């Protein structure tokens, strides 16, 4: 811009009013990886300090939710569970869904919840949502262990109709997809809420509505054909269905649905990172 174009290289860093949309600084995030692990550690350690049940709380929540679903949707509403034991059917849905909903809820308030730290010190802001998604993984592993224990219990029962199969090996991919969705939507919402708080009201009931639009409490096979295409348009449907198909052996599986989810997630995440990257530079002025 100015006179000394040739001396630019002498500076290790330049702060400008505008930064290229695509200047995403992934290297900087890598440099701060220790901070990310500190955040994950802090979240895990601090959540249940000074509680009696400690990490047991990670398990109590899905157990109670599953019981509630079993009673309300299974016994009262008599929604089909594809011939699977109700408890197992709902627990599978709750386990994978919880990972998404928790991560999404937390990432959607990143800027407002961390304004006090963000206002005092600089570090790549993306570290915080990334650490939220990572610490959600710890919680998922504990809840997943519960799911496996219940699964084994039902497998050992005589005449069990449950057939875990090779598609269960897709679970890590499903988690990556869920993490990508939670991160993508979460950071878009969090970027919007820095200026307009309206979006934070959307999140609390939006997640619940989204759960009903995703086959968590019902199998896709139970839907009438005209609703089926709507359910399949939801990119989260394929993930939940695949999870259940792999571990329980019922429901539907298609590579197409997964590919659709993957493309959708990638686009969402990309847009999210772009918006987040733009907002993080000035959000302290408006938050």
């Amino acid at each position, binding site marked *: 811009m100015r006179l000394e174009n040739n001396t630019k290289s002498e*500076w290790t860093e330049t702060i400008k009013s505008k930064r290229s949309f695509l200047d995403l600084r992934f290297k900087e995030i890598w440099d701060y990886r220790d*901070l990310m692990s500190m955040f994950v550690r802090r979240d895990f350690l601090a959540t249940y300090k000074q509680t009696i049940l400690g990490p047991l709380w990670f398990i109590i929540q899905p157990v109670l939710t599953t019981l509630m679903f079993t009673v309300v949707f299974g016994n009262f509403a008599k929604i089909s569970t594809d011939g699977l034991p109700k408890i197992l059917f709902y627990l599978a849905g709750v386990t994978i869904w919880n990972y998404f909903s928790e991560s999404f809820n937390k990432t959607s308030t990143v800027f407002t919840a961390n304004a006090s730290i963000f206002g005092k010190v600089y570090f790549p802001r993306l570290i915080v949502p990334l650490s939220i998604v990572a610490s959600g993984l710890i919680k998922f592993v504990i809840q997943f262990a519960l799911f496996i224990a219940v699964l084994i219990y039902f497998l050992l029962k005589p005449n069990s109709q449950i057939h875990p199969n090779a598609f269960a090996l897709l679970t890590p991919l499903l988690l990556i997809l869920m993490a990508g969705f939670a991160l993508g939507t979460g950071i878009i919402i969090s970027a919007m809420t820095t200026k307009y708080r309206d979006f934070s009201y959307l999140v609390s009931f939006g997640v619940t509505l989204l759960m009903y639009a995703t086959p968590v409490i019902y199998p896709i096979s139970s839907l009438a054909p005209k609703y089926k295409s709507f359910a399949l348009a939801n990119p989260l449907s394929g993930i939940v269905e695949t999870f259940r198909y792999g571990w329980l052996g019922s429901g539907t599986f298609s590579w197409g649905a997964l590919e659709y989810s993957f493309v959708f997630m990638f686009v969402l995440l990309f847009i999210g990172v772009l918006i987040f990257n733009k907002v993080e530079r000035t959000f302290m002025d408006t938050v």
Partner: protein
Amino acid sequence: MSSLSIKVQDLSKQYRLGQVGTGTLKHDLNRLWYSIRGKEDPYLKIGGSNDRTIKGESDYAWALKDINFEVKKGEALGIIGRNGAGKSTLLKILSKITSPTTGEININGRIASLLEVGTGFHPELTGRENIFMNGSILGMRKWEIQKKLDEIVDFAGVAAYIDTPVKRYSSGMIVRLGFAVAAHLEPEILVVDEVLAVGDAEFQRKCIGKMKEVSSNQGRTVIFVSHNLGAVASLCETGLLLQNGNLICVSDIQVALANYASINSNDIKSLEEVNFRGPLIPFLQFLKIEINNLNPFKESIHISPENEISIELKIFSSCINPIRITFSIFKEGLRLFSLHDTPECVFQKGNFISKFSLPAFLLRPGIYTVGLGAYSKSDEWIWDDNVFDFEILSIFDEKNEQKNFGIINIKTISSAERISN
């Protein structure tokens, strides 16, 4: 060029005044429309200077406007200015917390900013865990913290509590631990806000000492903001003076301090606005107050410590009983002393003048508040605690030594001799 550590060019920062609401959305859409057509942001052209006392017509204000300066390697730069001058905004931009509206800053070296002590401390985590937490937030790698852990614990003096959650710490311990972590960062450029000044005098001296060591011995660049002009004068060789978002000067610290002293304060009330209380209000009016022949209601008062301080009051009284004028000097809410008219000169009806004087070198550098009033023999009174402020400048010589901590200077007579080997 290579000896420069920071170069700031045409830096400006605009803030929107008022609340974020539907009007903001309209401006945002308008701005988007301009940027789609490749035009300049329409709101950048407007906006008054950042003078808080005058209500501008625009919704936008410039917190900083066209700032240019350079900082050399190893230099200690002090940023001074009144509240709202733009000091914190400048620090926030340097610290990358917010970005400038226009202009750019070139930086050479790792920059670490301390706008707060102990950022990210979690009350439930132990001292040790928080050292790692805070260190990582400030940009240290885990192994760097590990390497310096003992030094940090030592500097903070909290070895016995290191595995206790910090919520059990006293506030002083938290501050010491926070500063200890920050002090062991090794950035090429250290940006420090005055929040470091929390804590007692001993701790402040330790902080200033550590920063001095960082800048002069280790050749690192320090940028320091404080209202404590004494601390700025002792730490920094260069001063940068801001007023209402504009750069007034970047120069030798003593010159900058003298310029600072000559800037008029915006928040001086008038004599009529002083809130006197008491039964004598209808009977007594202060017509004019002067300190060293200057009117504290027209300009802010900055007195060199080597000058005597004389206060002159013009008063109209319609009191029936004889009255005595009295005033007190306060510093940070503490009443230092009170002075009274001598018992012989009693005033009743009429206009009169009352004079007080304080010896030179009595008060040490700082801001002092004058409380003023009168009372009669039958205990009728009039009084206000906060009539005007004046500042004793931080100019140090043998009679006003920097190492004399405290509020006043006193003459000491001391002797020392060897009594045995």
